[in-house]
């Protein structure tokens, strides 16, 4: 896979590290245990497009919000996770 880092351009995915679903951006406020259980453990795990988090560890260190098809591996959008999170606020 080639991931187009918004800073560094297109790079082989070996430069990146995968974390998981982009739902991890949405850390619950407050102390609701059910909300945290869902946040930490439960996954939709779709077969089609999925928003997920990768870090460009061997490059600029930015965390990226990557929209990728889980079956074809086609990547349709890459944004800075920081920007996605800020926009959601």
């Amino acid at each position, binding site marked *: *896979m080639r991931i187009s880092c918004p800073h560094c351009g297109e790079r*082989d*995915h*070996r430069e990146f*590290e*995968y*974390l*998981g*679903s982009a739902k991890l951006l949405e850390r619950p406020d407050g102390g609701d*245990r*059910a909300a945290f*259980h869902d946040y*930490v*453990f*439960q*996954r*939709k*795990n*779709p*077969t089609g497009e*999925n928003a*997920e988090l*990768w870090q460009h560890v061997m490059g600029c260190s930015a965390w990226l919000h990557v929209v*990728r098809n*889980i*079956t*074809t*591996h086609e990547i349709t959008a890459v944004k800075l996770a920081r920007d996605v999170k800020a926009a959601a606020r």
Partner: protein
Amino acid sequence: MHYSALQILKNGLTGNKGWKPVWRDPEPKKSYDIVIIGGGGHGLATAYYLAKTHGIQNIAVLEKGYLGGGNVGRNTTIVRANYLLDGNLEFYSHSLKLWENLEQELNYNAMLSQRGCLLLAHNDGQFDGLARRGNANLATGDDAVLMSADDVRAFTPYLNFDDARFPIRGGLLQRTGGTARHDAVAWGYARGADMRGVDLIQNCEVTGFRIEGGKIKGVETSRGYIGAGKVGMSVAGRTSQVAQMAGLRLPIESHVLQAFVTEGVKPVIDTVISFGMGHFYISQSDKGGLVFGGDIDGYNSYSQRGNLPMVEHVAEAGMALMPMIGKSRMLRSWGGIMDMSMDGSPIIDKTPIEGLFLNGGWCYGGFKAVPAAGAAFAHLMATGEKATWATKFNLNRFETGHVIDDEGTGARPNQH
């Protein structure tokens, strides 16, 4: 038809024309007492034990492709019982015992070969970790031998002991671990189930559940509606998708794990070697191919194929551990989709929907688990009770905090 040397002789002399189908291809009935979704190792074993141990015969196994076409036919065939934590310890211990009698029980040669399974340690901390594991295995009644670096050298002299990046500090050998012929396990269970009246229905994809009043009624399939008293999901790799049709969301991600085989060579490796530091393991098949693998590629995937970084990493680890394989050639690589659970351990449990049961989240452990998981899932579906060797694989353990995290990496499926 009972298989025996005599049978082979008889057929050999008569042009091999007397062999009978190993399983029937029945049309699906309108309804069954129990429907198992998934004709892989687990689903077939579950049906077999339901029929054999629990005397239930009105069973169907629904397979969307061909029998044994999922992970049971694309793994690296390792069988072992050298886990670390309670929950896994007794489960895999029980599984290995079932493996040891499987061929006679099924009258099918699955070629279980207990040629040993060696885990390597490269520093004192890892060595202590192996000791803890070995002690737990011995306490569970399984085999374990702690080896010094010299012991390892005597046992596997072809490893790199002289200029290794991570010198070998010692190892833990389980002599009862080894390999089996993966396809034969699926076929043997399929044959056993079919002989006991189970309908094995291929090319039949489940497309939905019929649930009324919180209770399962049947399944919609590509070959029409099939009613069911109970339904078991045994579809590792697609568990999230199937469960979602019942409105369930699970602590599972799907990842691709690659496996590799080289061209056949004369015997050079007589055991299974696991190089934890390099995320690499290897054995040699009876045909002569070196069978090896490593970690999952590391990203969610439903494609049964991987990418080059892991291919290269695995080859690099192989060259680091045993540079004698440099002149063998990788013949084929393939991928399987792993149900990676959030603690690296499986789920065998009821679901919130009455009559709907779940067997999934197997991560890398699915193949070696086939007998015990099939037997445990059958026990659960037949009796409503957990089997004694599988009491801790609960669906709600993430809520309660009773996770079974053998790797200690937490809710990071790609690190288990």
